[in-house]
């Protein structure tokens, strides 16, 4: 046993082991991607910025202006203005604003949303929202539905 430990020390076996690991790993495929050109695929429950959506089948507004998301939001970044629907019951949105400056991506606004089976507000997979001024983070309803225009990177 002692001889073994001695040999291990003299022949620098541990160092060779480490060298072998790095030598082997060189030939494995890379696990990073060339970011703006290609992006990684997200797991379905990834929480990007919260956005609104319409009913994918009928194209109607899903939000019923219940203000539950505004009430639960811990940073108070959602503000909803609505009015009574002129035809029949219910309310309709005038404006729906999320201040992305304050949003903490907690996803709490999605949980109480009453529209079933598709929630009106959802955590999207968007994450590229760097901007040059603070105003650009206050996002109005149209942009919440359609998303930010995507910049295509070349070369």
């Amino acid at each position, binding site marked *: 046993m002692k001889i073994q430990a001695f040999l291990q020390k003299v022949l620098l076996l541990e160092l060779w082991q*480490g060298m072998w690991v790095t030598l082997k790993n060189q030939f*494995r495929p890379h*696990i*990073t991607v*060339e970011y703006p050109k290609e992006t990684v695929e997200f797991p379905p429950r990834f929480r990007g910025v919260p956005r609104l959506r319409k009913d994918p089948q009928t194209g109607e507004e899903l939000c019923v202006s219940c203000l539950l998301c505004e009430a639960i939001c811990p940073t108070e970044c959602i503000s909803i203005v609505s009015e009574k629907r002129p035809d029949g019951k219910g309310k309709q949105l005038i404006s729906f604003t999320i201040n992305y400056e304050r949003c903490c991506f907690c996803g709490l606004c999605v949980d109480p949303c009453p529209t079933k089976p598709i929630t009106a507000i959802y955590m999207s997979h968007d994450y590229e929202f760097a901007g040059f001024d603070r105003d650009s983070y206050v996002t109005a309803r149209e942009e919440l539905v359609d998303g930010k225009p995507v910049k295509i990177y070349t070369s």
Partner: protein
Amino acid sequence: MISDNIIRNFIIPLTQVLVILGVASGAVAYMTLVERKILAFMQLRLSPRRVGPHGLLQPIADGIKLLLKEDITPDKADRILFTLAPIVTVIPAFTALAVIPFSGGGTFQIFGYQVTPWIADVNVGLVFLLAISSLGIYGIMLGGWASNSKYPMLGALRSAAQMVSYEVPFGFSIIGVMMLSGTASMVGIVEAQREAHVWYFLPQIFGLFVFFVSGVAETNRLPFDLPEAEAELVAGFHTEYTGMKFALYMLAEYTSMIVVASIVTTLFFGGWLRPFPNVEALGFLNLGLDRIHPVLPGYFWFLLKTFLVLFVYLWLRGTFPRYRYDQLMRLGWYWMIPLSIMNVIVTGGVVLLLRR
């Protein structure tokens, strides 16, 4: 008009120097790219590949960037020494290239003149190399001192201690090669390896080990880059340097890497010799299958071997964490120096017995 004498004694050496300087600078530039690529592959990352196809123009972009950067001299720095220090570091690094034989097989004929593939074949080549490589430390000391700042000073002090400690095994480890070949001329050592029918890395395996480890420590490369340990000393001796002065330090570091790799190739791996240089059947490795036209000439083998040694450099960098300062000193004084002295004694004994 220009006499034969001037051409032979002035123009030809000048051309040799310029060609070798140019090739070495280009090699240094692309060494940075190769280093980044190999490190990236070892860490399963992508390497730089934005500038040009597969990032091949990256060194040029880096060079332009460094040229255009603002050249700052700190207020409290010693202006003259601060400017002088990078120059003092670069000159010895390039000077060492003078005695390295890049190819063999006699001389080239260019316009009727004999041109050797080395700048000078000094008969004390190895001693010259040792002397020159010890000079590199002055630039680092000066730079650290002239910056008038804490971290460069600490880095320079460490560098001084480290390089002086590893100078000893560095010198001892090549004595074995000198004894085996009986000469200190670099060309003579390669020729001796051809006559000995074996490259010296086999009889001098401990010498090779000690020489390479001390070489890594001498050039301040990982895992012995204590003088510029980022985690502790910001950037060590070149913390205050910017722009071209910083580039000169980098140039010196990579040039000395290449120099050490070339010395390892020359001393231990047979320089420009092809594998098994005395086996006639393998002649096609030099001359091609028709045995007349040189296909893989001496400098090809030299460059191949040098690149492999440089790869080991990068491989070490990708594998080992930085040594602690006391561990570095203990390795130098407790292991490297006794090992190299033992190597000298045993080699001397064996050479003495064989000569009888």
